[in-house]
């Protein structure tokens, strides 16, 4: 009896292995994406779709990858980690894509790290910035990113904050989510590297309507710069609470407040600085103008301000081109070969000059966009403009 079970289990295992190897052996020329295309962060999925589709069109106009047309498939995860994990399996095992792009939510990206490395499909995050999603300690690591990284964003913001602070006291407001709770560690670490501590670290929940207790504590701690790790709605409530208690610090935020803070907060948003990797606002160089012309024609937009997450468009665009170049270098659709090739791609992209895109010897360099390419933008009368093109840039 025991031997029969053993033989049965052995056969099942052999069948599973052959099925799995069959799945692995037959990758198709497609790039998948799991992102929120419905729900409050649907604009993130839309931005990724725009950038990826335009890049795929450009690649296909030049003959595709290894002689075949490249496809882009997008699935909705609505910001829910279990759906992101399901979509990862679907993209890898059912669609058999060569690689996949990440989405907007850090909680989803962190949950995807396990199945991505388990299956062994190259994943390139293009928005979610959580440090641990990509720096996950796995070797080999199939998680890559062409986007901002919270650890580097934190250092960038702290540098900016200490540059403009007169008292040297910085307050930090962060949302009580995976994104915010991941960032507090990075910001404290960045402050410690400068030999300082945060004057106040205040948290809040999504949907909170009033932040006056947090703002009062930060004000009374003597801070003159406030770093924000918030989305537009809560960022607006923080600004209004600051207005109510009569506190006017310099405000610098991660890109969660790059959506419609200017519309929500009106004049209170003027001068609020936001870090991004890319913006379509302000004057355009030839490269940006060419991409904007394509976005405008394909998606029927009239004004660059209609793009709510320009960084997502540009990051996804660059990521798809980097993946296509890796496929050409690998001369194969094979996941492992493409992963290896990603470390050898050099590409002059929209956001950065990737030389190379990733570095195998440095776990921190699974991230392609270095902090020197981060851009500071500022809200002026409802528009988020490159800071150097505004009066605020001259005072910085």
């Amino acid at each position, binding site marked *: 009896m025991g031997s029969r079970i053993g033989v049965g289990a052995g056969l099942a295992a052999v069948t599973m292995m052959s099925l799995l190897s069959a799945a692995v052996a037959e990758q198709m020329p497609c790039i998948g994406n799991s992102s929120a295309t*419905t*729900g*409050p*962060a*649907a*604009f993130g999925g839309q931005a990724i779709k725009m950038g990826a589709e335009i890049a795929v069109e450009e690649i296909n106009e030049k003959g595709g990858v290894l002689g075949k047309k490249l496809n882009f498939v997008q699935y909705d995860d609505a910001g829910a980690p279990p759906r992101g994990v399901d979509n990862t399996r679907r993209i890898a095992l059912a669609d058999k894509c060569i690689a996949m792009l990440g989405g907007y939510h850090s909680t989803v990206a962190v949950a995807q790290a396990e199945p991505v490395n388990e299956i062994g499909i190259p994943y390139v995050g293009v928005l979610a910035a959580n440090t641990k999603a990509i720096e996950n300690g796995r070797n080999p690591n199939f998680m890559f990113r062409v986007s901002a990284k919270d650890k580097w964003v934190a250092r960038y913001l702290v540098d900016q904050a200490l540059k403009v602070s007169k008292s040297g006291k910085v307050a930090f407001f962060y949302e*009580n989510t995976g994104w915010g709770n991941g960032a507090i560690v990075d910001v404290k670490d960045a402050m410690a590297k400068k030999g300082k501590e945060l004057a106040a670290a*205040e*948290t*809040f*929940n999504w*949907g*909170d*309507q*009033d932040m*006056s*207790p*947090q703002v*009062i*504590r930060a004000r009374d701690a003597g801070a003159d710069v406030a770093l924000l790790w918030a989305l*537009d*709605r809560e960022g*607006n*409530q923080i600004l*209004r609470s600051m*207005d*109510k*208690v*009569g506190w006017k610090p310099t405000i610098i935020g991660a890109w969660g407040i790059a*959506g*419609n803070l200017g*519309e*929500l907060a*009106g004049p209170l948003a003027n001068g609020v600085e936001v870090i991004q990797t890319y913006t379509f606002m302000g004057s355009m160089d030839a490269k940006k103008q060419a991409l904007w012309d394509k976005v405008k024609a394909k998606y029927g937009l009239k004004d660059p301000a209609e793009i*709510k997450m320009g960084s997502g468009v540009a990051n996804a665009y660059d990521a798809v081109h980097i993946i296509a170049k890796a496929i050409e270098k690998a001369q194969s659709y094979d996941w492992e070969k493409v992963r290896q090739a990603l470390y050898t791609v050099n590409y002059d992209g929209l956001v950065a000059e990737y030389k190379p895109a990733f570095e195998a010897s440095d776990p921190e360099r699974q991230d392609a966009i270095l902090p020197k390419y981060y851009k500071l933008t500022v809200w002026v009368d409802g528009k988020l403009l490159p800071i150097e093109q505004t009066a605020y840039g001259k005072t910085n």
Partner: protein
Amino acid sequence: MTTTIQYMLSGLAIGGIYALVALGFHIMWSAAKAVNFAHGDTLMLGAVVAVIGVDQGVPLPLACLLGIAAGGIFGILLERFAVRPFVGAATSVGWMLTTLAVGVMTEALATLQFGGFSRPLPSPGVTGAVHILGAGVYPQELFIPVFAVVVVVGLKLLQRHTLVGRAMQAVAHNKQAAALMGINVNRITALSFGLASLFGAAAGILVAPVIQVSASMGAILGLKGFAVAIIGGITSAPGVVIAGFAFGVMEKFVEGYVSTAAREIVGFSVMVLVLLAFPQGLFGKREVLKV
């Protein structure tokens, strides 16, 4: 001292919002012995319709009226198709589930139509803060608790001095007896749901300039409003308003002197403790069921 006043004012503003939501639950419970768990979404619906109206170029006052009307129609339809078929059943599970389901559907539909972003609803009440003994507050925020008190007084007058109000009380007291007296029970129940939803949508429009309009704005307000209604005693209009104010102020003091993270823990612990000590809520009447 200024900080204490700030917490009081901010707490009253938030508490006023909870009180308005809780009043909607009170009106429905008083007539139907059932509530619409999608009531938070009625607030959202009113505010969303108003913003869409403004987007389409409709003048602000007219857009607000459209939002309130949409809320009223929503309440009447919901009572007819999601509550009335289940109210006579042995358990309350039917209308609880159907109203919850309608709430989820409404939010999903609003997200599809309205998009993911929060949107502002313009109002002169939030253009600049006024200062009272050093504490800052927007005039719109001050108006919210005042409006809640006015609604309570209006409700009392309606119940005592109008035929409809008396009919609502009669239906609440004993449906069969009310029907025997010639009162159209179904119509009165539908009216109470419609009235609650009208106030709900108006409340949504009133709080929108303060908390911004989004498809998800009603969920947490509905939950906290219901908690406040239970704490105050859902049968007592002044009770739910007092509980709303107290709950809002308590939240601000917990946030200020303990931590933001402790707010929900303390708030809902208080709700459980109040229910253990006062099963009918702080101001509710014990309801005697005669078998």
